[in-house]
């Protein structure tokens, strides 16, 4: 692996007695797309802020592009692009002005910023909105503008904190496409998400974080292989019968999980489990065989209890 651009070792962030991040270690290689997955309150955003050099760590070691954020915050930030969880675009300025003003914070000459702003408006498909007010943009457009703004300094590392939360499917796909292009150009991406499809689409490698610690690490395929089966058979017998049927099929597949509305049978071959069920005289109302996904891994590692 080439020399990492981000190295975090035993990273800890405490707020009084509460450890938001409790000993996280990971490395990100140049050009890699690395994901932090986890439920709300897992410590993803806190980790992102520490990497973004805007939050001082309580303990541990952190190196971004070979520099320690404790002494070189502005230097590190000069090479980062940051897309925060909620847009902090300037609503008092027009779309293009947001880019012009932001570029100046990096000390870039006005002419260069103006050229870059026009390129980025094209990249974000917002050319015809250049003079619009920010509040007049849709959620997806605001997100694209935030990404464009984050790219004004041609960053080496782009930090994206839940980049597509709240967007409709079309907007998400456009955004994914833009991020994929950046990845192709060699930009290192560090992103947090709780959308598993997003993680599978964008991440070369990821860590699952829960309660401030890392639960698992690997590529999406590795994680699925390690923490789930190849396929999942989903069967529905009606909410009143699911628990009773689950007892009858105990021993089917690698593992069975009973949910209020359905039973999940984790197996290398879902069709075969379905046949066994039919042979046992069990006929579900609906059945579905699908490939195991990162969502199965995520729910297995972080549990299904609602976290609010």
């Amino acid at each position: 692996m080439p020399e990492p651009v981000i190295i975090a070792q035993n990273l800890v962030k405490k707020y009084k007695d509460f450890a938001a991040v409790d000993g996280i270690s990971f490395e990100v290689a140049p050009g890699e797309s690395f994901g932090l997955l986890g439920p709300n309150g897992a410590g993803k955003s806190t980790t992102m802020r520490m990497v973004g050099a805007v939050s001082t760590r309580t303990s541990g070691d952190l190196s971004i592009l070979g520099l320690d954020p404790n002494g070189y915050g502005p230097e590190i930030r000069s090479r980062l692009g940051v897309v925060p969880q909620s847009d902090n675009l300037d609503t008092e300025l027009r779309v293009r002005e947001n880019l012009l003003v932001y570029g100046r914070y990096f000390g870039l000459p006005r002419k260069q910023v103006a050229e870059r702003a026009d390129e980025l408006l094209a990249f974000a498909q917002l050319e015809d909105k250049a003079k619009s007010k920010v509040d007049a943009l849709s959620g997806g457009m605001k997100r694209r503008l935030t990404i464009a703004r984050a790219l004004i300094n041609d960053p080496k590392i782009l930090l994206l904190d839940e980049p597509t939360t709240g967007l409709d499917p079309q907007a998400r796909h456009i955004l994914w496409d833009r991020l994929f292009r950046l990845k192709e150009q060699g930009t290192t991406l560090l992103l947090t998400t709780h959308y598993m499809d997003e993680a599978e689409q964008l991440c070369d490698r990821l860590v699952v974080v829960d309660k401030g610690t890392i639960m698992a690490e690997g590529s999406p395929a590795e994680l699925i292989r390690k923490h789930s089966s190849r396929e999942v058979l989903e069967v529905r017998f009606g909410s009143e019968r699911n628990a009773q049927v689950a007892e009858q099929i105990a021993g089917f597949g690698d593992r069975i999980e009973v949910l209020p509305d359905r039973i999940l049978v984790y197996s290398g071959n879902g069709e075969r489990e379905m046949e066994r069920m039919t042979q046992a005289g069990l006929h579900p109302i609906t059945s579905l065989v699908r490939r195991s996904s990162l969502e199965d891994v995520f729910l297995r590692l972080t549990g299904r209890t609602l976290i609010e």
Partner: protein
Amino acid sequence: MSAVVDQAEQAIAATVKPRRWGSWYVAEHRFRVMRSYAQTVVVTAIGNPLIYLYAMGVGLATLVDGNLGAEAVDGVSYLTFVAPALLASAAVAVASEEFSYPVLLGFKWNPVFYGMNASPIQPGQIINGIVISVTVRMLVTLGIYFGFMLLFGAVPSPTGFLAVFAALLTGLGLGALLMGYTARIIDDNGQLVMVMRFIILPMTLFSGTFFPLGVLPIYLQWIGWISPLWHGTELARVFAYGASEPIWLTVVHVLYLAVLLGIGWTWARRVTVRRLNK
């Protein structure tokens, strides 16, 4: 040289300008925002002196001078007496506008400070940038005001132009404190409205603006002594028409306002560092 060492060196080189000029870049942002309400800035900068100098200095002055003579108040005409005070009040008006809601907005309702802080800009530079931009706006406003004072013949002293700087110091001293206070507001429960209504606005009534502070009963005069507007007004009067007061008192005016500015500025910077580095 390894690729990472190379990148670290590039990062250090790229940050020389933001470290040096970051405060100015923030000021550039404020100027751009001010452009969106430039009309208000210009109209108030021209309209206020015109209306106030005419109403107070000419209208009210006719009554005061008519009853008490041409050297009615502090040995000068009422217009000459009130004009430097109005100049200082104009600085306070700009300060209360620019050091309050834009700061609250930047942290809360339009949280651009977080965006700035994600770039090489440092929290202290955000505060510096606000101070720079307000200083410029204040100088423009006060310059226009002073121009009208000259037109109305209200500046007999050759050192009159220094009243502009006395007023500037008044606005900045009071404004820096207001900025520190505003930066601390986490939950907006209308605190700023209270400050404007019960501190800033009534301040003119107890700061020797329309009548000398000595006219007030002694138990109310202390309000003037702690009021930046009184110190600024008295200072402006010394420059504008040579109001007589002991030199030590003039020095106290300057020091008092400079200390307020220092305290407010430092306070705002500290609060901003704390809020942005979580």
